[in-house]
C-alpha cells in the first residue's frame, strides 16, 4: 500500500494559477459593471432593459450577480454528431478536438502554383481531406466559396460544399441571422429533424463580437437565433493586442472575457441553458508589419491562459492553433503551426480551430492540412505523459535482462512499442535509404499524399434526396436575394 500518491495520467500544463484566474475574472466583472459594452440590436437592448442591467443608449452595464447567475446554466458537455453517425465528438473538460479554420479568401492553385481566389471546389477538397485525416475531429470551411452566385447567400453554398465530402462535426460561419437559420434547417435535415439536431448538433455556430466591447447587429442576431433554437454557438473575441485590446496579455484576457460574459448574460436572458461556448483568437498586431498575427507565440500563450479560465468557469472552450503568418507552406509555417498546436493541445481546449492556416488567415493550402495531420500526431503523443505502473516501470524486466542484456527480443518490447508514435510522413530513414527513395523532402511527401487522397479517398456520400432537399434551401435563399 502507498499513500499520498499523485499519478499524472497525462502531461500537465497550465499557464495561470487559480488566483490569477480570479484576478482576471473579477477584473472582467468590473469592466462589465463600470465600462459596459455596446449593443446595436433592438431586441437585445430590450432584453437588457427588462433585466437588472443598466442601459444607456446602446451601452449596457451589467452587475456581477447577473453574470454569476448566467454562468450556472451553461452545459459542460455537448456531443456533436457528424453526418456519419459514428463521428461523435464530446466537448467536455480537457477533451481536445482539432479542426480547420474558415473563409480564407485566397488559395494556392496546386497546378499553377499561383495565388487565386478560393472556390467551391476548394472547399469540397478541404472537406474531403479533413474527412480522410484521422487527427481532424471537425471541419470549418477552410476557404470561402468565392464563386457563389450571390455574396449575400454564400454561406449556404459554402455549407453545401462542406457537407458534400465530409461526414464529421462542423463549425459554421454565416452571413447573418437568416443565413444561420438556413444552415440550421439544412443541419436538421441531415440529422433527421430538429429534435435530433438539438440532442446531437451537427455543428456549432461561429459568431464574434467586435473588440473592444462592441456587439453589432448581425452578430447579435445570430446569437439570439442560436439561443432561441439551442444551437451551440461560440462568441469568440478576436482582439489584436495593442490595437483593439490592451498591449498586455492580461489586459487582453480581461477585455475578451468581459466580451464573453456579456454574451453569456444576453443568451441567458433570451433562453437559459442554451449551449454557449467560450472562444478567442487572442493575438497581437505585429508592430512592424501591422498584421494580425497567427504565428506569434503570444497567440499560444494567451490562448492557453484563456483555456485555463474557461475550465474554471466550466465553459467549453473554442481555441486556436496550427496556424501561421508565413506566405507559403515552408519552414516558418511548420515552426509556427507546431508551436500553437502544441500549446493549444496541452492547454486542453475543446475545439482547436484554424489548423492549417497560412498567410495570417488569408490563404488556403490543402497541403498545409496534410502537413498538420502529422504534426497533430506528434503533439498528441507528447500529451500522453508517462505511465508509471509496475509493468511500465519494468523492474522485473531490467532485473531479468541484467547488465549488458538486450530488450529487442523481449515480450515486453513486443507488447509495448506500439504505445509509441508511429511516424507517417515524417522521415527517420538512414541517408542511403532516403536517397534510394528519391531524396524527398517533407514538402514532396506532403504533396504526394495530398494528391493521393484527393484522387483516391472516397468520402461517404449523401443520398440524392437529401442533397436535393439541401439544394432547395440554397436555391430558395438565392431567389429571395435575387
Amino acid at each position, binding site marked *: 500500500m502507498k499513500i499520498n500518491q499523485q499519478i499524472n495520467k497525462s502531461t500537465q500544463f497550465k499557464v495561470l494559477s487559480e488566483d490569477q484566474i480570479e484576478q482576471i475574472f473579477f477584473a472582467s466583472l468590473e469592466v462589465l459593471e463600470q465600462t459596459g459594452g455596446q449593443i446595436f440590436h433592438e431586441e437585445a437592448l430590450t432584453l437588457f432593459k427588462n433585466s437588472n442591467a443598466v442601459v444607456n443608449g446602446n451601452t449596457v452595464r451589467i452587475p456581477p450577480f447577473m453574470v454569476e447567475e448566467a454562468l450556472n446554466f451553461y452545459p459542460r458537455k455537448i456531443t456533436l454528431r457528424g453526418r456519419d453517425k459514428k463521428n461523435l465528438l464530446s466537448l467536455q473538460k480537457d477533451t481536445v478536438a482539432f479542426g480547420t479554420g474558415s473563409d480564407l*479568401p*485566397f488559395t494556392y492553385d496546386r497546378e499553377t502554383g499561383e495565388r487565386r*481566389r478560393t472556390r467551391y471546389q476548394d472547399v469540397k477538397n478541404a472537406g474531403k481531406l479533413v474527412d480522410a485525416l484521422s487527427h481532424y475531429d471537425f471541419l470549418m470551411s477552410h476557404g*470561402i466559396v*468565392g464563386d457563389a452566385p450571390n*455574396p*449575400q447567400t*454564400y454561406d449556404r453554398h459554402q455549407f453545401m460544399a462542406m457537407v458534400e465530402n465530409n461526414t464529421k462535426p462542423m463549425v459554421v460561419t454565416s*452571413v447573418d441571422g437568416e443565413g444561420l437559420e438556413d444552415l440550421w434547417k439544412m443541419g436538421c435535415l441531415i440529422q433527421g429533424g430538429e429534435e435530433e439536431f438539438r440532442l446531437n448538433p451537427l455543428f456549432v455556430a461561429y459568431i464574434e463580437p*467586435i473588440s473592444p466591447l462592441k456587439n*453589432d447587429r448581425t452578430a447579435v442576431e445570430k446569437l439570439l437565433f442560436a439561443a432561441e433554437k439551442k444551437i451551440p454557438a461560440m462568441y469568440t473575441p478576436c482582439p*489584436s493586442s*495593442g*490595437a*483593439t485590446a490592451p498591449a498586455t496579455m492580461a489586459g487582453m484576457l480581461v477585455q475578451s472575457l468581459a466580451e464573453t460574459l456579456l454574451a453569456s448574460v444576453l443568451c441567458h436572458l433570451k433562453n437559459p441553458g442554451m449551449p454557449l461556448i467560450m472562444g478567442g483568437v487572442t493575438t497581437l*498586431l505585429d*508592430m*512592424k*508589419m*501591422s498584421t*494580425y498575427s497567427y504565428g506569434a507565440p503570444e497567440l499560444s500563450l494567451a490562448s492557453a491562459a484563456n483555456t485555463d479560465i474557461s475550465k474554471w468557469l466550466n465553459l467549453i472552450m473554442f481555441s486556436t492553433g496550427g496556424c501561421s503568418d508565413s506566405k507559403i507552406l515552408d519552414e516558418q509555417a511548420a515552426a509556427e503551426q507546431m508551436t500553437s498546436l502544441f500549446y493549444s493541445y496541452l492547454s486542453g481546449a475543446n475545439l482547436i480551430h484554424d489548423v492549417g492556416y497560412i498567410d495570417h*488567415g*488569408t490563404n488556403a493550402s490543402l497541403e498545409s492540412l496534410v502537413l498538420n495531420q502529422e504534426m497533430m500526431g506528434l503533439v498528441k503523443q507528447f500529451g500522453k505523459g508517462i505511465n508509471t505502473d509496475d509493468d511500465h516501470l519494468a523492474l522485473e524486466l531490467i532485473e531479468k535482462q541484467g547488465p549488458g542484456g538486450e530488450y529487442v527480443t523481449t515480450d515486453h518490447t513486443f507488447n509495448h512499442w506500439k504505445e509509441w508514435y508511429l511516424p507517417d510522413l515524417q522521415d527517420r530513414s538512414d541517408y542511403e535509404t532516403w536517397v534510394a527513395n528519391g531524396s524527398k523532402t517533407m514538402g514532396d511527401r506532403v504533396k504526394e499524399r495530398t494528391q493521393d487522397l484527393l484522387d483516391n479517398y472516397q468520402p461517404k456520400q449523401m443520398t440524392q434526396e437529401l442533397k436535393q432537399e439541401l439544394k432547395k434551401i440554397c436555391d430558395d435563399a438565392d431567389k429571395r436575394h435575387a
Partner: protein
Amino acid sequence: MNIDFERISELITKGQIEQLQEQTNQAIETGTEPAILLNKGLLPGMDKVGQLWRNGDMFMPEVLRSAKAMSKAMDILRPHLSKDDMGSAGKMVLGTVAGDLHDIGKDLAGMMFEGAGYEVLNIGIDQPNEAFVNAAIEHKPDVLGMSALLTTTMPRMGEVINSLKESGIRDEMAVIIGGAPVTKEFADEIGADLYAPNAGSAVELTKQYFAQNNS
C-alpha cells in the same frame, strides 16, 4: 526669433506632442512663415519617420505617436496655410464599405495620412455607397480611401467609383483602396487609381501618384 527646424523635425520623430504644439504656436506667433515651418520642419520630420519605418528601425506605436504629433501641429498650422502651401498634403475622406465592420486597417491607413499632413475625415465602418459620394461632394477631398476586408463587400468599392462618375466628380480625386482580400488586379478592374497592400506604403504610393499626375 530663430526657429530651430531641426529641433522641430526631431520632436516629430520622437513623437513629443505637447512640445511640438508649443513650438509650433511659438513659431507662428513670432512670425515664421507657415509654409516654411511645414516644409523645413514638419515634413522632413515625417520623411525621416517614413524612412526609419521602411528600414524596420521604427515600429507602429512609435510611428503613430509621430503621426499624431504631426497631425496636432497641422491643426494649428492649417488655418494659416493656403492650398498651394499644402502641396500634396491635402484632404482625405476615408471609410469602410457597407456590410463591412473591419476598421483597424482603415484607421491605421488614416493615421498614416494624417502623419503626412493630410486632413483625414474618417466616416467610419459599414458606410453605404451614398455616404462616400456625399462626403466626396461635401468635402472635395484630394484622396478618397475605401477599405473592405470581406470578399462579399469588395464589390461596393466599384459601385462607389461608378457613383462618383455619375455625379461627375470622379476625376477630382484619387481613389485608393485596401484590405486583406483586395488586390492590385481588383483595383485596376474597378478603376481605382491606387491600391495599397499596407498602411505604410499607402502614403508613399499616393505621393508618387500625385507627383506623376501633376507633372
